[in-house]
């Protein structure tokens, strides 16, 4: 049934053929299963094409046993009078005359009939006269006869003749039932039960095989599509790890997420459903056309033509409803967006007395949605009834034209019966093909999005790098040499930056939000490649170090408190498997979160999930504890304490100080109080490093830093 997927808009792909090809290419590992299922699909379609013929054969066989064999009656009718030849009558005349069993009355009646018989030569009249001969006389006259190897006794013949006496119509079926057994057996139509059995077993086997094939086919396709989906998900997840961070600057999380789930799901589901449907339907469609044309050209054209009228009608509606579908989708999007917005800002809506207006606005949107909803649902609901109608139209058309042809002796009746089935076989697949094609369209579109992601440029290869810095041996010097960097080629953010950081020094990067403070971290961590110049770690250029090596050298705590779905312990330990439980607990104590952990059910084994019990400040403390375990020679704190209130921060920073001891550290902060004692302060604004120096030096300069610093004490008066 061509019911367009509700709520899902058919998306057009940019390059349908290309994407499908690529999808199929990716199915290569399951080539065997795929071929198998396609073969099975074709096979079951062929079985579906064969069975109607077999079924009509079965019907024909049964029909054989319905109509009584009246020709046998005729034979008996002809045989009986033959006994009454002139010679035999004369021969038996004496017996009749002398018989004591025959009453006189009968004898007289017989002689009257005999007289009449002698006067006529017409068989028909003779027979009519013969019927009237009394039974007793007939018993003498008649002898057992054999028709078709069946012996019919005299008594049976007499009963038969008496039956004929009572009716004029020899085919009166009810009379047939009272025929004497011997004749009844002759006349009774008989179904060749053995033939029926064989046919039924044959058809039943076909059905069973077809069902079995169907199941194997669905089973294989399900296996393929799910394994394929799994592979795609893995590839996407792996891809995330090898994409440069730059990619995530211009792409939203939701976008990648929807590729992992929605797009992959769409591909898996549609491959599962549409592929088999498409193959089966195509086979049925082509098969039925071939069958139709080979049986009767005129009927084939009639059937196809009458169905096509319906399809033209349907595609008209379909194209018309597409408009409403996209409108419905749009209105639904608007409505959902509005609801989301209002619910998220509910406190504001309420405290500003915006409720009334919100409901008003909501009602307008709701009315619009209602309208689009009605129209699109109504039109899509029309498809089924129209399809049925088309089917019936085809049926009547085939019957009418067929009957005409039968009359002119151009075809036999069986052809019409076969055609009735072919019409069904022809109309059903057409709509299914249309549906499968539109599903494949969206599959291709989804495939495009997935492949587009998988094709994104990856991080540069580091295979040729052989240098390795052991984190236990690194002294801790970092030197920036003529560093130039821009996120895009057009805009250089860091221009010719030079600085040397000695082991154990504390470097602070300050500046207003959006000044590019994080950029420095990104370069140090080799998250981004610098355009020109070099950064040297212990004299080794980061170009000559693998990213993985660099990451082992740095301990990094970020502003966003990233925790995953797991226990506190798992979160703090993270991937550092050699860390003991005790070390974890010590780290917790260090950052002063131990009391809080004790209050949680399960302590360190408490699950962290999206709930209110853990505040963002506490989450941040967990991430700091995690960073502490890393024991790396360099430390990066990127607004690591921004979510913690100032008092807690004090506590943490004392822990931090311990952590930083002997380590070269980089601190990004917007609370200037935390960084006053830094050995070097880099002041950034609008992406540029505009001032460098210690706190005192910078204050003396009376530049940007000084203004920034003093603004926090500006009083109202």
């Amino acid at each position, binding site marked *: 049934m061509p019911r367009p997927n509700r709520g899902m808009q058919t998306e057009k792909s940019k390059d349908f053929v290309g994407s499908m090809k690529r999808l199929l290419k990716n199915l290569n590992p399951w080539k065997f299963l795929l071929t198998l299922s396609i073969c099975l699909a074709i096979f079951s379609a062929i079985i579906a094409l064969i069975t109607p013929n077999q079924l009509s054969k079965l019907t024909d066989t049964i029909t054989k046993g319905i109509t009584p064999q009246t020709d046998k009656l005729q034979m008996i009718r002809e045989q009986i009078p033959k006994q009454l030849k002139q010679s035999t009558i004369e021969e038996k005349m004496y017996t009749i005359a002398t018989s004591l069993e025959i009453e006189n009355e009968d004898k007289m009646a017989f002689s009257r009939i005999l007289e009449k018989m002698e006067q006529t030569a017409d068989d028909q009249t003779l027979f009519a006269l013969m019927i009237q001969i009394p039974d007793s006389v007939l018993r003498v006259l008649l002898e057992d006869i054999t028709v078709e190897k069946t012996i019919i006794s005299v008594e049976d013949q007499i009963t038969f003749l008496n039956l004929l006496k009572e009716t004029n119509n020899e085919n009166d079926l009810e009379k047939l039932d009272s025929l004497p057994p011997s004749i009844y057996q002759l006349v009774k139509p008989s179904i060749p039960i053995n033939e029926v059995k064989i046919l*039924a077993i044959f058809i039943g086997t076909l059905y069973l095989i077809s*069902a079995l094939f169907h199941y194997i086919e669905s089973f294989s396709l399900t296996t393929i599509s799910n394994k394929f989906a799994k592979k795609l998900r893995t590839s996407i997840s792996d891809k*995330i790890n090898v994409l440069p961070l730059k990619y995530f600057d211009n792409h939203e999380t939701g976008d990648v997420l929807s590729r992992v789930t929605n797009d992959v799901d769409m591909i898996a589901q549609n491959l599962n459903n549409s592929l088999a449907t498409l193959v089966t339907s195509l086979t049925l469609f082509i098969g039925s056309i071939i069958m139709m044309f080979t049986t009767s050209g005129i009927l084939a054209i009639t059937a196809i033509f009458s169905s096509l009228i319906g399809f033209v009608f349907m595609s008209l509606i379909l194209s018309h409803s597409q408009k409403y579908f996209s409108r419905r989708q749009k209105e639904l999007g608007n409505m959902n967006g509005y609801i989301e917005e209002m619910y998220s800002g509910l406190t504001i809506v309420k405290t500003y007395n915006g409720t*009334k*207006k919100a409901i008003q606005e909501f009602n307008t949107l709701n009315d619009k949605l209602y309208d689009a909803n009605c129209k699109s649902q*109504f039109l899509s609901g029309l498809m089924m009834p129209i399809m049925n109608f088309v089917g*019936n139209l085809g049926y009547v058309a085939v019957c009418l034209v067929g009957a005409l042809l039968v009359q002119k002796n151009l075809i036999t009746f069986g052809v019409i019966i076969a055609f009735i089935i072919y019409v069904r076989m022809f109309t059903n697949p057409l709509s299914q093909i249309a549906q499968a094609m539109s599903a494949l369209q969206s599959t291709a579109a989804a495939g495009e999005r997935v492949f587009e992601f998988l094709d994104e440029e990856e991080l540069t290869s580091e295979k040729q790098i052989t240098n390795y810095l052991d984190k236990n041996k690194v002294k801790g010097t970092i030197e920036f040499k003529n560093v130039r960097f821009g996120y895009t080629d057009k805009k250089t953010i860091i221009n010719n930056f030079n600085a040397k950081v000695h082991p154990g020094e504390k470097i602070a990067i300050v500046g207003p939000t959006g000044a590019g403070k994080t950029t420095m971290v990104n370069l140090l961590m080799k998250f981004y490649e610098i355009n020109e110049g070099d950064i040297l770690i212990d004299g080794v250029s980061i170009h000559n170090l693998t990213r993985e090596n660099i990451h082992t050298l740095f301990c990094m705590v970020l502003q966003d408190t*990233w925790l995953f779905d797991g226990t506190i312990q798992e979160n703090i330990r993270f991937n550092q498997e050699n860390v003991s439980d005790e070390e974890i607990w010590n780290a917790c104590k260090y950052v002063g979160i131990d009391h809080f952990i004790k209050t949680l059910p399960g302590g360190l084994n408490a699950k962290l999930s999206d709930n209110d019990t853990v505040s963002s400040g506490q989450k941040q403390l967990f991430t700091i504890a995690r960073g502490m375990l890393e024991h790396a020679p360099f430390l990066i704190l990127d607004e690591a304490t921004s979510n913690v209130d100032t008092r807690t921060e004090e506590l943490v920073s004392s822990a931090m100080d311990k952590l930083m001891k002997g380590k070269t550290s980089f601190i990004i902060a917007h609370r200037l109080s935390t960084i006053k004692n830094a050995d070097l302060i880099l002041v950034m604004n609008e992406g540029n490093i505009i001032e460098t120096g210690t706190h005192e030096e910078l204050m003396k300069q009376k530049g940007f830093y000084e203004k920034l610093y003093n*603004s926090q004490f500006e009083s109202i008066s």
Partner: protein
Amino acid sequence: MLKLFKNLTKKDFTYILTCTILIVFQVWLELRMPDYMSTITRLVETEGSRITDILINGGYMMLCAFGSLISAIIVGYFSTHLASNFSKNLRNKLFSKVLKLSTKEIKEFSTSSLITRTTNDITQVEMLLSMGLQMIIKAPIMAVWAIFKIINKGLEWSILTGVCVLILLSTIGILMKIVIPRFARVQKLIDQINGVTRENLTGIRVIRAFNAESFQKSRFEQTNSDLTSMQLFNQRCFAIMQPVMMLIMNGLTLGIYFIGAFLIEEALISTKITLFSNMVVFSSYGMQVISSFLMLAMIFMILPRASISANRINEVLLTDETIKEGDFDGNTKEEGTVEFKNVSFKYPDADEYLLKNITFKVNKGETIAFIGSTGSGKSTLINLVPRFYDATDGEVLIDGVNVKDYKSEALNNKLGYVSQKAVLFTGSVYDNVSFGENGKEKISLEQVKEAVRVAQGSEFVEKMADTYDAHIARGGTNISGGQKQRLSIARAIARKPEIYIFDDAFSALDYKTDATLRKELKNYTKDATILIVAQRIGTILNADKIVVLDHGEMVGVGTHKELLKTCAVYKEIALSQLSKEELENA
């Protein structure tokens, strides 16, 4: 589910009634058609029948088909209107209800869940109505009618049909029993896949910095495998469905013919033909019976999902509103005073008090600031004023009247609330700043401009392409956080409230803007009372009164200078931000 359908109106029921009548008509027509079909077949079969007879019967059949089409269209029209109308009303009801819910109830449901309830869940129920209504009416009528047509046409056939229906229903039943609980698990696993991927994306820097790619990969693969095997199991089970259906349908026809062959063979000659035509009729009606049971089964398959959705909707609709508005219209003698009298607060199911025994009073034109570490209860305290929560003990008075006695509109008219996280709506700058009603006339463009100026937003707004008509995208994503906050402050200013409430609203601003803004605000609203929650000492230095909170208790009240001397907690906070000299100089 049924509770939800109480929302159907009288008009809806007339729709349903009309649909039922039409469907009965439709079923009648559809069941007539096999009769015509067999007549036509017989006519074609018998030699010498006239074309006109076929034409007449064909015409009748087409009339039936056409009638059924028309009635299906009308039923479709009614049922879509019914379903759309139902969902429209329900959506409206739910939306209005959610707007009435208090912060506590919203937290319990969670905003995102409320959103899905208003959108997805309603769509689910609507789908059931628009698709299922026709089926639910049609399937039983069809089944019963078709059964009546064949019931006395052959016991053996009836038994066979019964067995087929039984097999069909038990197959579906078993499948549902196996698969449905697993569906819920699949949903969970999909959420998990989403979750892990989201983790990988949001924590990409952390993961790379820790070289934890393979750690995360194994976490992802775990879920991925679980999901795949669960899906595989489900879908493999479901793959049985279609072949079995086909087998039953085909098997029924074959079975009827097979049994028929024996029945006819044994019958008297006189009854053979009747039996044969009965057989043909039976096979087509038997199919109708099966397909109507199939329809019923389908309803039972979509029913569970819809009924879960219906329950979720009902849950919201039946929630008691814990915060009920009073009937005081807000005409007070006093103006601009806020008083807390022995206020304590705890969440209804919590053991621990978040606020204990808070008492203070601010007068017209004064500024009061609340400071304390994370979790000290300062935001909670301030939330008691606009009644996001109600005090557990004690009283919160505005202009001498308990906030619980106010009509909520009257209370809100006195307040200008700015939240920590700036909330903006889709629309122009003007729409956003003039948002809501304040019991006075509509806020003019001039007032908006003035408010934006005070909030230090003129510069950036006037730089935007359409200045005050400039479009703010959903969630304000096209302007920066600081700009958003300035507009949300301007929105409060434009209301000209008696009392301002700033819940940590200045943290998103840099120090400079923060200072200028507060200076301007003070000049602009000399008579207004201001309540500020802040983290920065700098923000509250000049407040008339500072309340220091620690673990829900007031540990100090006074001016900055007084507190520095008297309050240890305050001093600690201050020192964590500024050096001694700076504090003294300030």
